[in-house]
């Protein structure tokens, strides 16, 4: 199959890649670019483990074609920390034991970060609905919601 060449920005870096026309962005990230932090839990957009931002908006990368990344700006879990300095969300997820197995964590971090960027002071209910597209089977969400609340408070302090 003929491949398309795509130029895009991932976590701030200019990236070019070749991919098949029917290849998902998730497959490109994982299999061609070695960014395996985004996970495939369903490939139907139901679990959110593959969440990334595309021009600032949270998308399931399993429902986006690699070719659609042309000229766009993508951010993945690998781009959340600033070098070895963790983002407050990452710190609070650890401190609050908001992960057990950790497979859903990249998606939750991407979705939570996008939430806090547009709403720095969300209510519990707003957090729960903002994260309703991310499935976690281990935690019952309690500690995840608390971690997001704590990170929001920390970030508001600046």
């Amino acid at each position: 199959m003929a491949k398309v060449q795509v130029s895009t920005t991932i976590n701030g870096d200019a990236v070019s890649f070749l991919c098949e026309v029917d290849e998902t962005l998730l497959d490109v990230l994982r299999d061609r670019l070695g960014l395996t932090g985004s996970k495939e839990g369903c490939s139907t957009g139901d679990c959110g483990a593959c969440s990334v931002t595309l021009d600032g908006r949270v998308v399931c990368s399993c429902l986006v074609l690699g070719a659609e990344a042309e000229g766009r700006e993508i951010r993945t879990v690998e781009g959340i920390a600033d070098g070895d300095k963790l983002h407050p969300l990452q710190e609070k997820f650890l401190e609050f034991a908001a992960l057990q197995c950790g497979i859903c964590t990249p998606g939750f971090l991407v979705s939570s970060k996008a939430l806090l960027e547009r709403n720095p002071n969300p209510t519990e209910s707003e957090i729960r609905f903002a994260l309703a597209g991310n499935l976690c089977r281990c935690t019952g969400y309690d500690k995840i919601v608390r971690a997001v609340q704590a990170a929001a408070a920390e970030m508001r302090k600046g």
Partner: protein
Amino acid sequence: MPLDANLDPRTHQFKYVGTRPLRPDGVDKVTGRAKFGADATAPGMLVGKILRSPHPHARIRSINTAKAAKLPGVKAIVTRDDFPETKDPSLKDVLYNVMAREKALYDGHAVAAVAATSASIARKALKLIEVKYDILPHVTDVDEAMKPGAPLLHKDMITDGVDPAPTKASNIAAKCEFGHGDPEEGFKRADHVISRVFKTEATHQGYIEPHACLASVGTDGSGELWVCTQGHFMVRDTCAALLGMDVSRLRVTASEIGGGFGGKTTVFIEPVALALSRKAGKPVKIVMSREEVFRASGPTSSTSMTVKIGVNNAGRITGAFAELRFQGGAFAGSPVVLGAMSCFACYDLEHVKVVGYDVVTNRPKQAAYRAPGAPMAAFAVESVLDELAQKIGMDPIELRLKNAAKEGTKSSYGPKYNRIGLIDCLEAARRHPHYKAPLGANQGRGVAAGFWFNFGGQTCVSLNVNIDGTVALVVGTPDIGGSRASMCLMAAEELGIPYDKVRAIVADTSSLGYNDISEGSRVTFSTGLATISAARDAVTKLCARAAKIWGIPADAVVWENGYAKPSGPNAGNFEPLSLQDLAKKAAKTGGPIAGHYEVNADGAGVSFAVHLCDAEVDPETGRVQIKRYTVVQDAGKAIHPSYVEGQYQGGAAQGIGWAVNEEYIYGKDGRLQNPGFLDYRVPVCSDLPMIDTVIVEVPNPGHPYGVRGVGETSIVPPLAAIANAVSNAAGVRMTQLPMSPPRLLKAIFDAKG
């Protein structure tokens, strides 16, 4: 291994145990660096895909792979012919489940597999494989499968456990019985007797990470396997046996595991990937799709149950009987035995009997799901108790307290209990503010108790003292919920060095002795016990090195807070030597310092939980909302309380899904109708409230610190607690799960007449 003498875990001042440090694998898991099953690659790697039966029951007349083999890019194809018959009867069902033989026994049963240079070529190749089926009548419901004349899955299945043995084959694989006394006698003494029939649908563990593995077999026949599993030693031994390899020639590494809950305690794709790799001479990676996970991994049983309980007006249970009918998919082995053993285990009963039937149907072979068998059985028993409490006008916790098992009680499944914590949990639940909080309109409160055995098992741990005084802790039980943190805490406690000086890893199968699967809530208990013992072994050696340096007898040295010290003035006057000092001098005092421990651990104390649930029912739509939820559970001793709470909350959340939403839906054609997260709906964040937890600590006499397993008990009470809450809210007794809107609405309308 008994509780340490003179150690009362409730008053003892632990230095590290009971604190909440960050987990050692944490940073990797919040930065995307952690490597899970599907994250590994190898040079020259091929993609493996599996062809699955679209029929629930069919004879496979022929499989023609010629066209697929000619497709450019296809490097290997395997079918039943590539898996020789096994001589080991215990592996027969595993083998037949991995790759169908004469018959496909369920929708999704593997029939052939391909390895190709790309996923798209592998998918095309699957379409070119020609399979000729003779379609047979099928059965997916447990009660239907038990009827005479039902479509027969295995022509040689004679019910086990029946004397005299039946002469005719049936779908009933086995019958089991537990109990003591005579329930009929007990019912005669009752003031009230209630008997009801219950049904629960099959649910899936729903781990977010699909099964994944990367296999590589060299031309010399030795192989490596990277796999997400709860038990890599089990994977090694099973795959080696199925493929005719020496165990020593297969090295299995457990990846980080993205959830298991019992579902990753057997093999599905691993032998297939190895067989493909062996044939192709290249590494092969297989990753299940979500649809494959639903159709062809191991969900839990669906059930049909009859429970009859009698009580007197004083609230004592006079007699109890249950008949449990569990279908476990296409092969024997449903968890009905565990359901039958556990269903009355909370209570001190004079007359109790449980009969269980293990039934096969045309569904995927079930695998363990968190306290296998117990949640469904508890749903039936605790629902009848709720009704009986109302009948005699007694508080439901009071009724349970009047009958609660305690130390010395002969359990319904046989053994006498050692020290247990059910009464403590019931009292803590009754004291909890949740229990006294007012309820709103259309809301009901439910209470239920639950029991789980907890396992021990074969365990092996090594602890290496490094040259800089840090410690490498080597365990063989995959970390499914933060266990490396708990192990580091216990090692730090024993050695008297800071938590972050100890790093735990899960070793591959060639680097450590055999370890049983991470299942049965056994890891913090068994691997913890082995870690403590390995640390004590290292301490003995550290003390001997200090004795050697000081020139005094080894028994004149004691270990305190990370230092070797002379045991008293008579031993001599020497500056204490730290673990770091001794590590640095190791080469000159006898070489490397390491502690080891191997055990087949027993003494895993049973545990109990009591759950409180407030549910709101929308009488117009039948929708259930969980408004408040509290878990009270005995942990024996919580090593890392955050992860204990996490187990409580996670079990409750899975129970909520099971009770109100989740179900395997089979069509008349015997095919699974909802193999995806859109139609098989697990709870999402906006479905749930915060889940409150109370950690009760009644020490387990079988562990040095009193630890009991905590992972499974938490899913035992929810089905019943939620059903009781919903029944109380809706004013109609719900005897079938899930209580999905259509089912609940129908029950409400039927009750209104």
